[in-house]
C-alpha cells in the first residue's frame, strides 16, 4: 500500500523511500513515516513559482537519483572535529553509530540517546513532541525527512538541571561512490529551569548527497538553551534543513548557525515565542564561493507579550555564489511590548556574487518595537588602504577585514574549542575566496 503513494514527482527519492519503508522501526516512527510520506506525496518538490522557493535552485536535486544510505557504516575518524569535553553522538547518514559516539555516564534524569531507544522505551517526551513542531504539512523537506525517519538524536534535559558539558551531535552524510539521501533528526526537550548547550554538527563524507535534517526543540519555562549549528558538508553536497523551536515563558534560546559547505545549503528556521518574556537570539554566518547557494529562511513569531527576539545574520560571498536571506517577524495581535530586531549584512567579494535579502515584518499588535535592516556591500576601501599603508599586503588585508566581519558572529559561539577551530576554518575558506578573487 505504501508503494502506491510514490508519485512521479518523487522520482529522485523513490529508491530511498522504497528502501526505508521496509526497514523495521518502533511503531511511533512507522506512523510518522507514513504521515511524512503522505504529506510529501501531496506537496511534491517545491517549484520556483512558490514565493518561498523563488530563489532556491533545486535543479541539482531534481536531476539526481538518490539512494538509501550504505548499510555498512564507513569508518570515520571523529577526532578532528570533536569538542573534547562534549558528550558525543555520531550519526552516519542519519543512522546512530554507537562505536564512535561517546556519551559518557549521565546524571539521573538526563537523556542523551538515539530516537529509536527513546521511542522504544516509551519516553513521554518523544511521544508528545516528536513530529509536533516541524511543519510536516507545509514544508516538502520536513515531510521528506519524516518519511525517511530511521533514527535521530534525542536529548531530554530534566527540570532545573544545569549542564556544564556541551552535547555534540554529529551527522556525517554522503559517500564518495554513491549519491545518498539521509534524514538526520534531532529532538531536544529542555524542561523548566534547565540549562544546556547543544552543538549540531553536519559534516560531509563526499559526493553529491542530499541531507534533509529536521531539528525540533521544546524549551520549558525559565529554561535556557544554547544551540550551535555548524554545516560544513562537502562543496558538492545538498543540504535542506528545517529547524523549529518553541519557547515557553521566561525561557531563552540562543543560536549561532554557521553555514560553510554545500553546493546548495538551505535552512528554514522557525521560532515561536509562546510565553511571556521569552527571548530568542538567532545569529548566523554563511560563506559562499564558486557556485554555492546559501539560503536562510527565518520566521520568528511573537505569540506572547513582552518577548524579545534579536537576529544578526552575516554573509560573505565570492565567485558566483548566491545567497538568500528571508527574515520574517510576525507579531500576533496580543503580543504587546514586543521587542524584535533583525539585521542581515552581506559582504560581496566578487562582481558576480548575488544576495537576495528580504526582511519582512507582519505586525498585528500596536505597542511594539520592531526594527529590521539589511545591507549588501563591498569591502571598505578606506579600511583596506589603512591596513596596506601600514605594510600589510593586499590579500592579507582582505583576509583580515573579512575575518573581522565574520568574527562578530563567531565570537558569540560559547564553546571555546569549537569557536577557535571555526575561526581557523573560516580563515582558510576566506583566504581561498579572496585568492580566487585575486585571480580574476
Amino acid at each position, binding site marked *: 500500500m505504501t508503494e502506491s503513494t510514490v508519485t512521479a514527482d518523487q522520482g529522485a527519492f523513490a529508491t530511498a523511500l522504497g528502501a526505508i519503508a521496509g526497514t523495521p522501526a518502533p511503531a511511533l516512527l512507522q506512523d510518522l513515516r507514513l504521515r511524512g510520506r503522505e504529506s510529501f506525496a501531496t506537496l511534491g518538490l517545491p517549484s520556483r513559482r512558490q514565493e518561498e522557493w523563488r530563489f532556491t535552485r533545486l535543479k541539482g536535486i531534481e536531476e539526481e537519483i538518490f539512494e538509501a544510505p550504505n548499510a555498512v557504516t564507513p569508518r570515520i575518524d571523529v577526532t578532528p572535529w570533536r569538542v573534547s569535553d562534549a558528550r558525543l553522538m555520531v550519526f552516519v547518514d542519519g543512522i546512530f553509530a554507537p562505536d564512535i559516539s561517546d556519551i559518557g555516564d549521565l546524571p539521573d534524569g538526563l537523556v542523551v540517546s538515539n530516537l529509536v531507544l527513546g521511542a522504544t522505551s516509551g519516553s513521554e517526551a518523544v511521544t508528545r513532541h516528536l513530529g509536533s513542531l516541524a511543519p510536516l504539512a507545509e514544508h516538502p523537506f520536513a515531510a521528506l525527512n519524516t518519511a525517511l525517519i530511521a533514527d535521530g538524536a534525542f536529548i531530554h534535559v530534566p527540570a532545573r538541571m544545569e549542564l556544564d558539558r556541551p552535547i555534540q551531535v554529529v551527522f556525517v552524510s554522503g559517500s564518495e561512490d554513491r549519491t545518498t539521501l539521509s534524514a538526520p533528526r534531532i529532538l531536544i526537550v529542555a524542561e523548566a529551569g534547565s540549562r544546556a548547550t547543544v552543538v549540531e554538527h553536519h559534516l560531509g563524507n563526499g559526493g553529491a548527497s542530499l541531507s534533509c535534517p529536521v531539528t525540533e526543540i521544546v524549551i520549558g519555562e525559565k529554561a535556557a538553551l544554547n544551540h550551535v549549528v555548524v554545516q560544513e558538508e562537502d562543496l558538492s553536497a545538498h543540504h535542506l534543513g528545517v529547524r523549529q523551536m518553541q519557547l515557553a515563558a521566561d525561557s531563552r534560546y540562543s543560536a549561532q548557525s554557521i553555514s560553510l559547505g554545500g553546493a546548495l545549503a538551505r535552512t528554514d528556521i522557525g521560532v515561536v515565542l509562546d510565553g511571556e518574556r521569552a527571548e530568542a537570539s538567532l545569529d548566523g554566518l554563511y560563506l559562499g564561493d564558486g557556485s554555492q547557494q546559501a539560503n536562510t529562511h527565518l520566521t520568528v513569531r511573537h505569540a506572547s507579550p513582552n518577548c524579545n527576539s534579536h537576529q544578526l545574520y552575516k554573509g560573505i560571498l565570492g565567485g558566483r555564489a548566491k545567497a538568500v536571506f528571508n527574515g520574517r517577524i510576525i507579531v500576533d495581535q496580543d503580543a504587546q511590548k514586543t521587542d524584535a530586531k533583525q539585521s542581515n549584512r552581506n559582504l560581496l567579494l566578487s562582481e558576480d556574487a548575488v544576495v537576495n535579502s528580504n526582511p519582512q515584518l507582519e505586525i498585528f499588535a500596536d505597542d511594539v518595537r520592531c526594527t529590521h535592516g539589511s545591507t549588501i556591500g563591498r569591502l571598505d576601501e578606506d579600511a583596506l588602504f*589603512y*591596513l*596596506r599603508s*601600514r605594510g*600589510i599586503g593586499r590579500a*592579507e588585508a582582505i583576509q583580515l577585514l573579512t575575518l573581522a566581519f565574520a568574527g562578530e558572529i563567531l565570537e558569540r559561539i560559547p564553546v571555546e574549542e569549537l569557536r577557535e577551530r571555526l575561526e581557523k576554518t573560516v580563515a582558510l575558506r576566506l583566504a581561498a575566496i579572496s585568492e580566487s578573487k585575486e585571480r580574476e
Partner: protein
Amino acid sequence: MSLLELKNLHVSVDGNEILKGIDLTVNPGEVHAIMGPNGSGKSTLASVLAGREEYEITAGEIRYADQDLLELDAETRAREGLFLAFQYPVEIPGVSNTYFLRTAFNAIRSHRGEEEIDAMDFLTLVRERMKLVKLDESMLKRPINAGFSGGEKKRNEIFHLAVLEPRLAILDETDSGLDIDALKIVADGVNSMRDPERSFVLITHYQRLLNYIVPDFVHVLIDGRIARSGDRELALQLEDRGYEWLEVEPAQAAGA
C-alpha cells in the same frame, strides 16, 4: 643623499588638477612642515605619497630612498619605511589593535629579510612604546580605532609610528581636533622619535603644532603650488597675517 625628492609633481583627481608642480627635497633627519589653507592640496600630497590609487600623476616624479616611489604599491612603500599618520584614522571593528600592528610589523620585517617577532616579544615592545603617547593598555586589545575618541585615534597613529619606526613619517593634520593636552602628548611622542636618520613631513593648517614640534623648514602650499618656503619664522608670520598675503605675492613675484 636626499630621502625624498619631489620634482614638478602634478596630480589630478577626476580630471581636476590639485597639485600643480611641487618641488620638495627632504633629507634624512629633517622635519618639514607643509602649511596651507583648506583645499590647497595638502592632504592630496599626503595621500599620493602614501600610495592611494585614485590619484592620477600627470607629470613629474617622486624619488624615495633612491627608488621611483610611484612604482611601489602602498604596502611596499610602508615596508620601505614610509608611514602616513591619517587625518581621519579608519575604524576597523573586529581587528585588534595589537594583532594588526604585529601583522604590519612582521610584514615590514620579512620585507627586510628579518625574522618575524613572536607575540610575547612584541607585547614587550608595544608596552614600552605606548608609554610615549600615554595610551591605556586596554587600547591594545580593542579593535582598531573603534569607539576611540578623536584624541585617542590621533595618539594611536603616533603609537603605530613609534612601533613601526619608519624612515619617513608623514603626519596629515595630526593636530586637528586635539585639545592642548592631547596636542602636547602627540608632540612629545613625535619629538622622542626624532632621529638623524628619520625624517618628518608635518601637514598642518595651524602654526600651533609647530610650537611643540619645531620644524627645520616650512613650506606654504597654496592652490597646488608651494608659494613660499622658509624656516620656522615663516610659520609665525602666517599666524599673524593669515594666508591671504601669500595668495597674491607669488603672482606678483612671477610678474616682476
